């Protein structure tokens, strides 16, 4: 033994190689090494077979320092090329001793990856697994889940997802939202007269989402939930108050420029005629009659002037009181509405409409008394309640040859994290209709016919003021404006818009279905182009939605024929799926689909006629290339002669080529054509 020891040099490479496996000691034993005062890349390691399993026999603080060996691509620090080590307490490491059997100079060569089954407990003793989190490295798990594994699987180090927080809350426990504004709508700046109503609706819709997120606790617990909601409502109230200024201005303009000026002008003429006639009858003098008529008209100047003078003040008076009304409306919506459906949106704007009418009639009404003689029965409230221009706004063509501005944007709304949103037109007539009906109901309420414990003021008796509005089957005097969760989620909607054209229609094809019956959800595996529409100058947007906003991630793009000599010029000829998404509710009784054609998204270059294209099922496709090796056509197996299996899953087409590159092909699905079947037996019925 002594001889053996004497023969050893205890120098790496001369006495063999002494491997070891050990565990990085807990934070407390690492001293200044991990607190910014350390030296080198070293940690204290307890080594199996060399160090005891007891901290009494050998305290963690007394363990040897082990140097970490870096990879050649990491950089040592020389030349400013560096990567620091990422060793954590509890890491299981493998290394060797620089000093052989003396075992005082351990080197760490590598670290064993951690699995999700390894406990993340606090340190309990040597060689027992424990967490790598320390007093200085903490994670509350709020945004990035606590994961101490580095496996190549779906469970390890899951990242936050780019979906709305309201959807994340319905996903498994380890789902997180990457950004809480994802899913909210942004309305672009616009001179389009209808944009004010769209902006208001967007504000309310986003508010409901934010409130739901806060209520569900997805944004943490900084401050009270009610305090956060109050703050949000206050902000949105201010925003909508500002937006309402446009509606107030439009409505005043409608009154002054439209009905009132015409009524007074007509009244003046009548006044002149009647005064002229009575004076002429009394005096027989035309000049006296003319003077009297003019004098009667002049007498109206102060009254008409007072109405003109009041104009700037009316708007400011209404704006001074509208905030309170908006806040009341918003709070009612938050309390009662769980789904901001179109009819609630219309009713909300209708409530603003009623408040503004109340304000205008309140200020202007008394002034009209001064010109009562020439009003000719003009009814201010009735006039306002019949005019759509007040809400929508009007663009006056000030001269006959002034060109109305055009708005070329393909979209005016954007969903954060998703893309363009189809901007639905504002149904102004419906808003006015519901506002008037709610106003009538409100009058009934005042008469004591209907007793509900809500304060309506001058806004009107709207459905969203009713706590039952989110109960299935809700009905009221205004109609059926159920504002609860959608009762039928099934199916995907394909909205094709923008691009200058109209009437392109597509039908979603869902596959990769998981779950059964009503719970079945799937992905968008194709879009059946029902109609190519017409007039498309550029490819339109393809928006994919569902009734319940459950599905996410499906993205598709349209292709427009831009060949002037083609019979399908300016039509949508194809729609291909870029991302299939997931969680879309499955429609009942869908058709069977097969791969009917191949869309050449990019033709690539350098391909040859001998190259092959196959799909996931092994079906082979024919390929035709041009002189530059660009793929110009791909032929599918003849579906009328063969009976290919129905496509129930997103398919990928793979090109095998030694020379070509850059081509992108997408399968085009269609409803399975009628298949005659192969001939089994010929029966001779004549002989």
């Amino acid at each position, binding site marked *: 033994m002594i001889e053996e020891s004497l023969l050893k040099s205890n120098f790496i490479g001369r006495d063999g190689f002494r491997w070891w496996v050990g565990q990085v000691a807990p934070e407390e034993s690492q001293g200044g090494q991990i607190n910014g005062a350390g030296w080198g890349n070293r940690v204290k390691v307890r080594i199996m077979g060399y160090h005891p399993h007891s901290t009494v026999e050998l305290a963690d603080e007394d363990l040897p320092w082990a140097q970490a060996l870096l990879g050649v691509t990491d950089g040592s620090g020389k030349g400013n090329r560096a990567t620091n080590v990422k060793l954590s307490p509890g890491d299981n490491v493998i290394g060797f001793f620089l000093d052989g059997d003396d075992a005082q100079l351990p080197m760490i060569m590598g670290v064993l990856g951690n699995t999700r089954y390894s406990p993340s407990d606090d340190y309990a003793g040597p060689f027992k697994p424990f967490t790598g989190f320390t007093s200085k*490295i903490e*994670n509350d798990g709020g*945004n*990035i889940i*606590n994961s101490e594994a580095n496996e190549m699987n*779906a469970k390890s*180090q899951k*990242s*936050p*997802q*780019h*979906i709305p927080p309201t959807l994340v809350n319905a996903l498994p426990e380890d789902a997180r939202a*990457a*950004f*809480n504004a*994802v*899913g909210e709508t*942004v*309305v*672009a*700046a616009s001179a389009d007269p209808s944009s*004010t109503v769209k902006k208001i609706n967007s504000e309310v819709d986003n508010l409901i989402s934010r409130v739901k997120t806060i209520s569900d606790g997805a944004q943490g617990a900084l401050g009270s939930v009610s305090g956060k909601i109050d703050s949000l409502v206050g*902000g*949105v109230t*201010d925003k909508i108050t*500002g937006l309402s200024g*446009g509606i107030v201005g439009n409505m005043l303009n409608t009154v*002054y*420029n439209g009905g009132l*000026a015409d009524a007074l*002008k007509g009244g*003046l003429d009548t006044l*002149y005629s009647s005064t002229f006639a009575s004076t002429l009858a009394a005096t027989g003098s035309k000049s006296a009659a003319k003077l009297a008529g*003019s004098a009667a*008209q*002049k007498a109206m*100047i102060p009254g008409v*002037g007072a109405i*003109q*003078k009041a*104009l700037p003040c009316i708007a400011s008076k209404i704006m001074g009181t509208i905030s309170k009304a908006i806040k009341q409306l918003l709070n009612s919506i938050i309390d009662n509405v769980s789904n901001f459906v179109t009819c609630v949106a219309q009713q909300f704007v209708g409530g603003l409409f009623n408040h503004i009418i109340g304000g205008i009639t309140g200020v202007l009404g008394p002034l009209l008394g001064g010109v009562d003689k020439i009003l000719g029965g003009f009814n201010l409230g009735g006039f306002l309640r019949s005019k759509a221009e007040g809400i929508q706004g009007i663009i006056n063509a000030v001269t006959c040859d*002034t060109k109305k*501005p055009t708005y070329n*944007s*393909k979209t005016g709304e*954007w969903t954060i*994290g*998703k893309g363009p949103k189809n901007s639905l037109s504002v149904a102004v007539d419906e808003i006015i209709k519901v506002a008037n009906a709610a106003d009538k109901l409100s009058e009934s309420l005042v008469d004591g016919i209907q007793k509900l414990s809500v304060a309506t003021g001058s806004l009107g008796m709207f459905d969203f003021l009713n706590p039952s509005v989110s109960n299935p089957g809700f009905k009221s005097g205004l109609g059926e404006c159920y504002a609860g969760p959608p009762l039928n989620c099934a199916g995907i909607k394909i909205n094709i818009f923008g691009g200058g054209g109209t009437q392109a229609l597509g039908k979603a094809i869902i596959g990769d279905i998981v*779950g059964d019956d009503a719970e079945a959800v*799937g*992905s968008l595996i194709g879009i059946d182009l029902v109609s190519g529409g017409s007039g498309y100058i550029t490819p339109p947007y393809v928006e994919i939605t569902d009734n319940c906003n459950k599905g*996410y*991630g499906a*993205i598709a793009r349209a292709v427009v024929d831009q060949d002037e000599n083609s019979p399908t010029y300016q039509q949508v000829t194809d729609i291909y799926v*870029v*991302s*299939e998404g*997931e*969680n879309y509710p499955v429609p009942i009784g869908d058709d069977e689909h097969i791969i009917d054609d191949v869309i050449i998204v990019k033709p690539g270059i350098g391909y040859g006629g001998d190259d092959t294209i196959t799909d996931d099922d092994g079906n082979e496709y024919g390929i035709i290339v041009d002189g530059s090796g660009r793929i110009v056509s791909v032929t599918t197996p003849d579906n009328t002669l063969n009976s290919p299996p129905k496509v129930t*899953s997103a398919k990928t087409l793979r090109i095998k080529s030694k020379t070509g590159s850059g081509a992108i092909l997408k399968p085009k699905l269609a409803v399975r054509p009628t298949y005659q079947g192969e001939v089994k037996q010929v029966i001779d019925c004549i002989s």
Partner: protein
Amino acid sequence: MSERPAEKQNWQQRQYISFGPHFRIDTANPQMGLNGSIVYDLFAQTSSGDKSVVGMANGGIYHIYNDQTIEIVGGQEDESGGVNINIVGKNGDVWITAERNGEVKIRAKNITIDADDNIDLVAGNNITLDAKNRILLKSNVADCDALTGNLAPRDVTFMGQVFKNAAGGGTVTDMIPSGGPIV
């Protein structure tokens, strides 16, 4: 809520480096988002929970999100005084939107707004043009459409509309001011 089938999620392609709970680089993560799965993300969070995400989704959107302020500053050492920040939309709109009650503020020595076709200035309440020296309106056609105010021509004001061509003739209409409210 259900994710798509496991065989449709390509976890084999995913590569990530997690630098601890505050920063992560994630590529080809099959977790689905509104614009498709992740091509790459640089995800960061502060110890206060504020998040920042820069990355790209398979639907094609490149996103820059931040819970607090996004600061873009260029040209500190550009002594030539050339272009310091250049934002270009190659085929479509360029949108700038201040949500909630934020304001859009633009300040420079000179400001040029150059439209190939039309410029629309729209305000729900007031538009103020305040020049300390001169305001020049130059056009082949310049109209004012206002119900009152000292720029409004007599025929266009509310009173002008009411009394225009009144049967009493000039003696009445001559009394209507050519703009501004009657005091």
